[in-house]
């Protein structure tokens, strides 16, 4: 394969003979670069006349520029990544996708792909004859069809066909697929697969030439396409049209088009959801007209019931439920009846689920006689199996709603427990289990009839059948009265213990589950469990092998914890503690997790001194020996230490030295974990009076503040914080005056965990021990904190704001305020908002009079952001200071006056918020005069239409109403309630309504006097 030769063969762009027309209704000319002009001409003659040959020479460079118009949904990402044929063809310049795109040739045009001489060479000359095409044969060349066919490739002449077909196809598609279909309008997207269904719309045929059915079909297609791919408003109207005209269109036309669409494999969730919505609506409209289509719809929808995706299942259920309501029970049964004893298990399974949905839609009682008949079918065991399965699915689907029909359902399937077919018996016990689970904790009386066969069954059966029976009993026992539960548990336990040794994994899981369920029932005594169950349970399940499988592991842990609830901590921990020193890591983890859960639930008071020693020893061993660091051991360690409390004291020095050793470890996760462990045990250490040790830890952590992994640094800071919290600022080692300057640069760290922990630590220091650090250092921190206001996490921003307050309290508000006020000038909105909040907080902590003058002075800066920022700060300020506001009302009134008559909407909006907070702050404190003044300024704004603005304005007026009383505000309102212009009436009624809701009774004396006789409130004229 000499490169030079290939190069000769490579398509020359100059040969591309046609400029492509971008119209849908025109058949696309097909170019086959690499062939001669004559070849092309002959090919094109076979095509429809509508092709307009418009040869145009293009340079290769033009081609590159002419990127095809694509919708972004259709872009094939591989286009740019793998330029076609660059390596394989040995071309100097990679062939641009658009150059090859034109080369798609449908096979149907005949001979284009393999010329006759090649075919002659390939196929033997004997035994084959060359057929003439039939006389009337004309290839179908609508573009829609063409696209569906296997594309032929460029450069086919030499036989070097190494292209990635997909790339070429999608390159072509991307070019040809429009988002604008005639009669539909601009769509959100149009996928390649849509062509199969909707291509028809774009074939350019004249509406006038089409028959009525064809027209109807196109109309539906158009609407469907709008629903599926259109923008939300388009979708809404299309959906409405489909629904309204459903009966005119008829079920046949609609479902013939919708059902294939719904079966499309590449359908996305959103599209499926929309189509389901369409079906839902039209089902409702068509009502009994859907009957002929019931089966077809079911065939399409039933598989959705067992889809992996939850939403697909829900939607499938919805359709079937609506279908059942539209078609009626009798019809549904008649339709699905044949599938009940279908040979294919899959069909029976989906049918049973569909029946369960029908039952939940139309009510269980309606279906019960039918189910009874199916379950006792003599004809085939498959029918009985499906019948029972339906009842199982009903239980799963309806949950506790089965309770009213429980007796009927149980009686229905009870005989099947003794069926001669093992499969039927198994599914029956599973169904009973599902019913019991759904009914829990009620309904034991309904199961009376099946108890005996169940108990006989567990003695008689082995293997899978037994597993199902045990599972069923596991669900029934919790429903029983305590004494019965006790009795039956003892009965079943013999078999469970026998099955402990079963090699079958499934059986093991079920046995564990049943033990768990039995152990949690009230009637079962601790003594019984201790003597009968525990020994063999631990012997067969607490083995290394169980820790290897994730699901077994979980089951064993859960069951052990459940047993511990009955038999106590000591009993269980005693047995598990040696596991902690086992050589298998997974097994150790299983032990730690169990101990953690048991101790967390029940405490450690039961644990004896000797056991406690072994426990700590074991857990330390497990902690040190872990190779995969995760939270299990950390949590376990923390929980055990905290549960032991003071009793940990003797072991603390050992624990701390382990931690110190591991803090030095090479691996980042190990360091992180040991720092996290400090956080967990700090409280206990303090309680044990280990101040010296804490100091030592503090110093070591301080030294590790240079840590470069942010996750680890975050943990170290967290550990320091927990030490500071328990030891107290004054006792802290290293002293705060050393610690804080080290934290200042860390504040610059952008990692969220680091930020959160530092700001917390700094905030705590600022709150409790600000005097240990110089004012200059605090100012430095202030500057760093400003950046924190940009943090994504709300917790960080909140902590930063509070810290501003603490710092201001410590070093006086002036300097902090200057910093904050300057920050009001920044571009970022979030930063400005946070600064405004911080100013509010500073004002709250340092009394408003220290802040207000500077703040109001700042309002004189003729800059929008600053003025708005000031107003915003005022709003937070007055919100925080509440009643203190009454002393400042006159001071801020002129400023507010100015803001409320500003041309800028946001000015008025924010000023209205300020007014609101002031008004709410000084209810009943004698500021009514100013408030009425503010009301006068606010009132004209009620004609604002922007939602935010009007909401704030109304808020402001409502707050003033609370301050000055409803009567005064109502005097402003009466005039507009019956104004001739609706635009005026509307906002006034809004004011009236909110006043009415809040204080209808208080309004009674203030309603206006109306002069018409029948409208007068005569009783008010009465005098005594």
């Amino acid at each position, binding site marked *: 394969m000499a490169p030079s030769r290939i190069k000769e063969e490579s398509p020359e762009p100059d040969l591309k003979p046609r400029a492509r027309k971008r119209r849908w209704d025109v058949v696309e000319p097909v170019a086959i670069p690499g062939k001669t002009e004559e070849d092309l001409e002959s090919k094109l003659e076979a095509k429809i006349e509508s092709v307009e040959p418009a040869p145009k020479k293009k340079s290769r460079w033009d081609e590159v520029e002419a990127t095809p118009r694509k919708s972004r949904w259709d872009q094939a990402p591989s286009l740019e990544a793998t330029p076609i044929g660059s390596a394989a063809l040995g071309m100097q310049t990679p062939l641009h996708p658009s150059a090859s795109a034109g080369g798609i040739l449908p096979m149907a045009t005949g001979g284009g792909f393999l010329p006759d001489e090649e075919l002659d060479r390939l196929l033997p000359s004997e035994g084959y004859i060359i057929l003439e095409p039939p006389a009337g044969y004309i290839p179908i060349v609508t573009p829609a069809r063409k696209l569906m066919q296997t594309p032929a490739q460029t450069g086919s002449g030499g036989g070097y066909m190494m292209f990635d077909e997909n790339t070429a196809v999608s390159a072509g598609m991307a070019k040809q697929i429009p988002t604008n279909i005639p009669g539909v309008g601009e769509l959100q997207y149009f996928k390649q697969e849509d062509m199969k269904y909707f291509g028809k719309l774009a074939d350019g045929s004249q509406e006038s030439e089409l028959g009525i059915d064809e027209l109807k079909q196109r109309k539906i297609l158009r609407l469907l396409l709008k629903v599926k791919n259109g923008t939300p408003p388009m979708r809404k109207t299309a959906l409405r049209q489909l629904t309204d005209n459903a009966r005119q269109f008829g079920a046949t036309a609609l479902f013939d088009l919708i059902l294939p669409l719904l079966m499309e494999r590449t359908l996305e969730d959103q599209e499926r959801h929309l189509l389901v919505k369409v079906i839902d609506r039209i089902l409702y409209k068509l009502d009994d007209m859907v009957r002929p289509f019931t089966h077809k719809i079911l065939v399409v929808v039933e598989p959705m019931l067992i889809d992996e995706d939850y939403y697909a299942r829900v939607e499938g259920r919805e359709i079937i439920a609506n279908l059942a309501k539209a078609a009626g029970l009798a019809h549904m049964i008649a339709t699905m009846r044949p599938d009940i004893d279908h040979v294919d298990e899959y069909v029976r399974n989906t049918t049973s689920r569909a029946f369960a949905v029908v039952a939940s839609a139309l009510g269980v009682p309606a279906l019960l006689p039918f189910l009874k008949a199916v379950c006792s079918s003599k004809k085939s065991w498959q029918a009985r199996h499906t019948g029972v399965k339906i009842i199982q699915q009903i239980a799963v689907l309806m949950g506790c709603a089965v309770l009213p029909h429980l007796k009927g359902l149980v009686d229905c399937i009870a005989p099947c427990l003794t069926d001669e077919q093992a499969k039927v018996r198994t599914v029956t016990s599973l169904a009973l289990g599902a019913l019991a689970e759904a009914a829990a904790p009620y309904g034991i009386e309904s199961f009376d009839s099946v108890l005996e066969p169940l108990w006989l069954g567990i003695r008689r059966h082995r293997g899978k059948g037994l597993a199902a029976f045990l599972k069923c009993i596991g669900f029934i026992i919790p429903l029983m009265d305590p004494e019965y539960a006790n009795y039956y548990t003892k009965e079943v336990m013999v078999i469970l213990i026998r099955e402990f040794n079963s090699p079958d994994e499934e059986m093991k899981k079920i046995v564990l589950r049943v033990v768990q369920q039995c152990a949690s029932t009230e009637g079962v005594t601790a003594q019984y469990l201790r003597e009968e169950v525990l020994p063999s349970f631990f012997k067969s399940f607490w083995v290394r092998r169980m820790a290897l499988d994730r699901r077994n592991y979980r089951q064993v842990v859960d069951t052990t914890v459940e047993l511990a609830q009955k038999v106590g901590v000591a009993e269980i921990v005693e047995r598990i503690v040696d596991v902690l020193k086992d050589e298998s890591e997974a097994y150790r983890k299983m032990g730690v997790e169990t101990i953690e859960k048991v101790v967390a639930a029940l405490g450690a008071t039961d644990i004896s001194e000797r056991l406690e020693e072994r426990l700590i020893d074991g857990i330390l061993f497990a902690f040190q020996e872990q190779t995969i660091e995760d939270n299990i051991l950390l949590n376990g360690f923390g929980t055990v230490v905290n549960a032991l409390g003071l009793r940990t004291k003797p072991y603390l020095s050992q624990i701390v030295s382990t931690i110190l050793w591991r803090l030095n470890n090479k691996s980042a996760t190990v360091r992180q974990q040991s720092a996290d462990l400090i956080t967990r045990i700090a409280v206990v250490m303090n309680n044990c009076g280990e101040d010296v040790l804490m100091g030592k830890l503090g110093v070591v952590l301080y030294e590790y503040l240079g840590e470069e992994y942010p996750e680890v640094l975050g943990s170290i800071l967290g550990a320091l914080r927990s030490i500071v919290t328990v030891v107290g600022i004054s006792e802290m080692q290293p002293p705060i005056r050393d610690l804080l300057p080290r934290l200042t640069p860390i504040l610059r760290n952008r990692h969220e965990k680091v930020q959160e922990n530092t700001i917390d630590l700094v905030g705590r220091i600022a709150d409790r021990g600000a005097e240990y650090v110089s004012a200059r250092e605090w100012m430095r921190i202030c500057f760093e904190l400003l950046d924190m206001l940009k943090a994504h996490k709300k917790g960080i921003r909140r902590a930063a704001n509070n810290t501003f307050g603490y710092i201001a309290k410590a070093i006086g508000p002036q300097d902090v305020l200057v910093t904050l006020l300057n920050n009001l000038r920044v571009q970022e909105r979030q930063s400005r908002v946070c600064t405004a909040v911080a100013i509010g907080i500073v004002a709250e902590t340092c009394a408003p009079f220290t802040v207000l003058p500077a703040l109001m002075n700042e309002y004189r800066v003729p800059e929008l952001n600053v003025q708005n920022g000031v107003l915003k700060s005022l709003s937070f300020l007055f919100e925080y200071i509440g009643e203190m506001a009454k002393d400042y009302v006159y001071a801020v009134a002129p400023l507010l006056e100015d803001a409320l008559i500003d041309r800028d909407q946001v000015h008025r909006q924010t000023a209205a918020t300020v007014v609101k907070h002031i008004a709410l702050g000084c209810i009943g404190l004698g500021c009514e005069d100013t408030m009425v003044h503010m009301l006068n300024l606010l009132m004209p704004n009620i004609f604002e239409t922007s*939602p935010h603005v009007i909401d704030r304005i109304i808020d402001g007026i409502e707050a003033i109403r609370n301050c000055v009383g409803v009567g005064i505000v109502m005097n402003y309102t009466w005039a507009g309630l*019956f104004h001739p212009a609706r635009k005026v*009436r*509307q906002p006034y*009624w809004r004011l009236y309504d909110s006043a009415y809701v809040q204080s209808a009774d208080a309004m009674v004396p203030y*309603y206006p006097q109306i002069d018409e006789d029948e*409208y007068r409130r005569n009783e008010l004229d009465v*005098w005594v």
Partner: protein
Amino acid sequence: MQFNFICCLISRVLHNRIIMADKLRAQQQLEQLQTRYVGVGHADTTKHEWVSNVHRDSLASYIGHPAMLEHFSVAFNEPRERVRMQFVDKMIQPCGPPKEKEEI
């Protein structure tokens, strides 16, 4: 500055849609209010409807405040219970039947 300008443009475009959404929301809120409080009105409330509600609220208020009821019973020279009954009865169409055609 550039950014602000673009934001402005976008907000213009979105403005209409927001207003539509807002109208819808306001409508829903109003309906919700109305189911809870009968006396809540809107731009199409007639004067008659409104005044009827005013009367009902007033009567309810008189009944609800014992001192007011006492006042009326003294003034009418009737027992309190009877005044209360009268007020309750009066709440049915306090301003007579709704008029056929009315100014707004």
